[in-house]
């Protein structure tokens, strides 16, 4: 094995940092976008077709760009926000632009699953669009939203492996640079095992949370 336990631990911390911060900011970006994608579409609460079409297009554009290209294209933005284009913090910016639109789509899906009868009932009661979104739509879809965010988090764990490209480090980077490129099988197995444990843990956590919400 070419790496020591210290390297693995610091890589693990880097991965956790990247995933946690990216998830936070991606959700802040993706949640409102996802809601807007639902409520501005045809026949919905705040129907606004030009807005919907533009937003829909922009999200598709970000979802089309391969991550490594996005990472390079975002360098000026990254420098503006973080002050540098290298390192763990700098990797968070492209990860957010990668994951935010993805979360928007997942949230759109979850909200569209909500029974239209619920919205009609709320409208009949005279609720404002804001009330309908936050008091009816979101609570109704909450369990499914939690599962959607779980999927996004696991997607981030995978995408964070690419952060090594800009010196961001992380477990995935260790797997690639030592396991893959240097044929260091032991490191490859250890890093992949850590990733498996992380993904299993995150998915179980998401499942438990979703279940609890559904029971309430």
């Amino acid at each position, binding site marked *: 094995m070419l790496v020591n336990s210290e390297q693995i631990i610091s890589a693990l911390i880097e991965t956790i940092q990247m995933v946690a911060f990216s998830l936070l900011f991606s959700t802040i970006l993706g949640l409102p976008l996802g809601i807007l994608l639902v409520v501005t579409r045809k026949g919905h609460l705040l129907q606004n077709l030009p807005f919907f079409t533009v937003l829909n297009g922009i999200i598709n554009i970000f979802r089309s760009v391969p991550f490594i290209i996005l990472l390079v294209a975002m360098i000026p933005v990254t420098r503006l926000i973080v002050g540098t*284009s290298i390192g763990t913090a700098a990797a968070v910016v492209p990860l957010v632009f990668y994951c935010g639109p993805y979360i928007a789509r997942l949230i759109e899906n979850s909200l569209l699953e909500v029974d239209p009868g619920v919205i009609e009932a709320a409208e009949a009661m005279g609720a404002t669009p804001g009330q309908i979104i936050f008091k009816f739509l979101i609570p109704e879809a909450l369990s499914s939203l939690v599962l959607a965010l779980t999927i996004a988090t696991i997607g981030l764990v995978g995408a964070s492996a690419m952060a*090594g*490209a800009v010196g961001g480090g992380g477990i995935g980077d260790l797997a690639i640079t030592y396991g893959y490129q240097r044929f260091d099988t032991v490191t490859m197995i250890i890093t992949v095992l850590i990733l498996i444990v992380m993904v299993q843990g995150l998915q179980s956590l998401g499942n438990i949370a979703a279940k609890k919400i559904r029971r309430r």
Partner: protein
Amino acid sequence: MKKLLLSIIVLALVIIGAGCAEKTSEGKESTTVKLGVSGTDTRIWDFVAKKAEKEGINIEIVPFSDYVAPNTALAEGELDVNAFQTVAYFDVFIKEHKLDLVPIATTVLAPMGIYSEKHKDVKDIPDGAKIALPNDASNQGRALLLLQEAGLIELPEDFDANGDLNQIKKNPKNFEFIPMVPAQTPRALPDVAASLINNGVAGDAGLSPLEDAIFVESETATPYLNIIAVQAKDKENKTYKRVAELYQSEDTAKFIEDEYKGNLIPTFVPLSNIGW
């Protein structure tokens, strides 16, 4: 109506038949050599391919985007020849992967350089500065050897060409080394004191080792000579040998010098010089 249909079918068959015949006769005259390269710059091989075409050798260039697949594809017989790697990388790769490949000729030296937007001399790089370097095995080892040559770090005596950051023996100025994918090293220049950029990447980024680098590899860096490799069973293959000869000719050398303005140095030496 029926006659018309029949004549159309007959005509179509004749055309298809003629097409097939043409292809087979062409196949007999020329041999196709599938050549694996890495990256998008195929100027030298385009030049060699043009010369080879006149002799009935059709070189099909297959570009790869990494440094692993061209060797595995060669070993599996998907490629006939590859030309993308240094002998140092090749030696370690075939040993670790247990591949039966051999070099048949040397090609060029593509000197790696230390680049900086802030400093004119490697001695000016301040204590604790950030230095970007490639994260892949062969380039990182090479970068560390170059840093040692520049007097910035010290490596152990038995440092092999594929060593990594863990093996740095002395780092007197406490530089912080940041490994990243090779193509990212030029892009990181504004954020670091210096970047170690391998030749191909520097060229793609519009940097010249001769003009822009503050320190470059010396010409005696024999482990970093590039080679043409084939499967061991093809060692004596006349076609492949001829391709190597076409590469190692004076007009190719002149083409390389003109086209790359000294950034690639044509280096045609006997295989014994590189330990084969």
